[in-house]
C-alpha cells in the first residue's frame, strides 16, 4: 500500500485554478520535495493532503484512508507545519509545546524530547514573540513532531531563513531520515533543499506536475541542476525571491 495516493485532484478558488489535475504516489519512508515557484499550487496541494482543504475533484488517500471518513485516525498519525503559523507570542516555547502535546494526550516527557531534537533547550523559557525566524521554524517543527508522525508535511520550512539557520533545520531533518520511520513531504522553491534532503522530487508549476523522479533521473546534459531544468521547462526562474503580497 502507498503511504499517500493523490488521484486526479483539482482545486479552484474563485477565479484561479490552483491545482489542475495532479496525481502522485508516495511510499513509506520517502522524503519528497514539492518544488515550484510562488503560486505553483504547492500549499494548496499539501493542504488538501493534510485534510485542511477539500479537493473539488479527485481523491486523496493516506495509508489507504480518505479524510472524509477517517479524519480522527489520520489526525493522530500526521504532523505538519503550515506556511505561516504565528504561535501565540505571549507564551513560552515550553508552554506552546505542552498545549499541543495535550491534544495528543502527551506529557512533559515528549515535550522534552522534541525540545532536545530541535535544539531549543536554551530557549524553552523564552516567549515566542522574542524568537528569531530560525527558532520559530524549529518550534513549528517541534510541534509537528510531537506525536511521532508517520507522515510529516512541512510547507516552506526554510523560506526566509539565513543560510546558517537553514542548514540547522536540514540537519534535524536528516537525522529524522536516518531513523527511517517518517515519510516527509516538504514544499520549497530552493533547489538545494530538494537536492540535499529528498530522494523524490516533484516539480510543480501552474497547478500541474511538470516532472518527477529522483535527482539523477531529472538531470541530463542540458540541465545540470534543478534551476536549469526549470528554466528549460518553463522559461521562468524557479526562485524569484520577489515575494509580492
Amino acid at each position: 500500500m502507498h503511504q499517500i495516493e493523490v488521484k486526479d485532484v483539482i482545486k479552484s478558488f474563485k477565479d484561479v485554478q490552483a491545482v489542475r489535475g495532479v496525481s502522485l504516489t508516495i511510499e513509506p519512508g520517502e522524503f519528497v520535495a514539492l518544488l515550484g515557484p510562488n503560486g505553483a499550487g504547492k500549499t494548496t496541494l499539501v493542504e488538501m493532503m493534510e485534510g485542511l482543504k477539500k479537493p473539488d475533484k479527485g481523491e486523496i488517500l493516506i495509508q489507504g484512508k480518505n479524510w472524509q471518513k477517517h479524519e480522527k485516525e489520520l489526525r493522530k498519525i500526521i504532523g505538519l507545519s503550515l506556511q505561516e503559523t504565528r504561535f501565540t507570542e505571549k507564551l513560552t516555547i515550553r508552554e506552546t509545546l505542552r498545549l499541543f502535546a495535550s491534544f495528543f494526550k502527551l506529557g512533559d516527557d515528549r515535550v522534552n524530547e522534541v525540545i532536545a531534537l530541535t535544539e531549543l533547550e536554551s530557549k524553552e523559557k523564552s516567549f515566542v514573540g522574542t524568537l528569531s525566524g530560525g527558532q520559530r521554524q524549529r518550534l513549528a517543527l517541534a510541534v509537528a513532531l510531537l506525536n511521532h508522525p508517520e507522515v510529516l508535511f512541512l510547507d516552506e520550512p526554510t523560506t526566509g531563513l539565513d543560510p546558517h539557520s537553514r542548514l540547522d533545520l536540514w540537519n534535524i531533518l536528516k537525522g529524522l531520515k536516518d531513523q527511517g520511520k517518517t515519510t516527509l513531504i516538504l514544499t520549497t522553491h530552493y533547489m538545494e533543499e530538494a537536492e540535499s534532503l529528498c530522494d523524490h522530487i516533484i516539480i510543480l508549476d501552474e497547478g500541474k506536475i511538470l516532472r518527477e523522479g529522483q535527482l539523477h533521473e531529472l538531470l541530463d546534459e542540458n540541465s545540470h541542476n534543478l534551476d536549469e531544468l526549470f528554466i528549460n521547462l518553463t522559461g521562468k526562474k524557479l526562485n524569484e525571491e520577489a515575494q509580492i503580497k
Partner: protein
Amino acid sequence: MKSIKTNQLYQLTLTQLLETVREPSVLFWGIVFPILISIGLGLAFTQTSESKFHIAVVEKQPTQLDSLLKISAKPTQHKGQTVQTWKVTDKTLGNTELNFLYTDWKNAIISLKRGEADVIISDSLGQICYRFDPHNSQAQLIYMKLSYLMKHPTTVASSDQGRIEPLTLKGVRYIDFLIPGLITLGILNALMWGISYAIIERRNQKLLRRMVATPMKKSNFLIAMMLVRFVMNLIEAGILFFFSWLFFGITIQGNIGALMTVLLAGNIAFAGLSVLVACRTAKTEVGQGWINAVTMPMMILSGIFFSYHNFPDLAVKAIKLLPLTALTDGVRSIFNEGAGWMDIATPTLALSAFGVLCFILGLRFFKWG
C-alpha cells in the same frame, strides 16, 4: 493515571489565562479604567458644585435685566472678555453663577454655535426675549431660573425651598445608577474584545487552522476561552464593586445569589454573541468594525450612563429587547431595588437562551481554517 497537565481543556484554559494576564493593557482596560470612570463620573455627579451658565445679551434698548444686573452683578473677566457675573447662593441646590456677556448679534450666534453660551437674550419693545434651542435642556433650565429671578429678585437667597427635600437615600443617587451599568458594560466589552478579537486574531495568524489540524476538540477551545473570560469578569466586577463600596458606599440591597445568576446569564449571552461575531472573518479590522457595531449602540441605548426612558415609547420597547438592557436592568434592580430570584427569572432565561442561540449559529458558520 495521567496527570491533569496532559488534559487539553486544562492546557487550553491555562494558556488562555497566561496570555490574558500577560497583556498589561487587558488589566488596564478591564480593571483600572472602569474604576477611573466610576470615580470620575461619580465625583462629577454627586457633588453639588456650583453650576455656571453663560448668556449672551444683545440689546437695542435697556431693559429690566440691566437694572437688575446693576444691583446684583459684578463685572468679572472670563476668557479675556468682561462679563456681568450674578452669583445666586442656594444651600440646597448648589450655588448658581450666571454670566452675562453683552455683545452683538453676530457674535452671540457664534458663541451659541460653539456652545459657549446656551441662551441669547434680546429685547423687543422693551420686553425681554429669550432665544434658545427648545431641545437644549440646559437652556431651558437657564430660562426658567432667569425668568424666576426676574419676578422674585429679592427672594433669591431664601426662595421657596421649604418644599424641596434633597434625596440622598442609597439607591437613588446617580452613582447607584452608574455602577451596575459599568459592571454590565465591562462584561460586554471584555467578552466582545476578549473572545471575538482573540478568535479573529488567531484565525488571522493561522493558529486556529494549526490547532484544528490536531485531534483537539473544537468545543474545548471555545469553552476554555469562555471559562477564562467568565473568571476574569467576576474578578473585574468584584474589584469595581469593592471600590464603589469604598468610595461611594454602594451596597447590594437584593439577593446575591440572584445577582450571580443574572451575571452568569449575561456572560453566556455575550460569550455566544462574541462567537457569532467572530465566526467567519480573518481580518482584525473587519472584526473591530463588527465589535464596535455591536457594542456601541448598546452602550448608548441600553441606559448605561443615562436612562433610556427619555426615548420615545416605541424606541423604549425596542431598547428593552437589547441584551445589555436586560442585563443592566436586572443587575440594577438587585443593587438598588432589592430584587430577588423571581424578578430576574425572565431576563436570566432570555439572556441564556439568546447566548446559546448565538453560540449554535456561530458554530454552524464557524470558519476554523
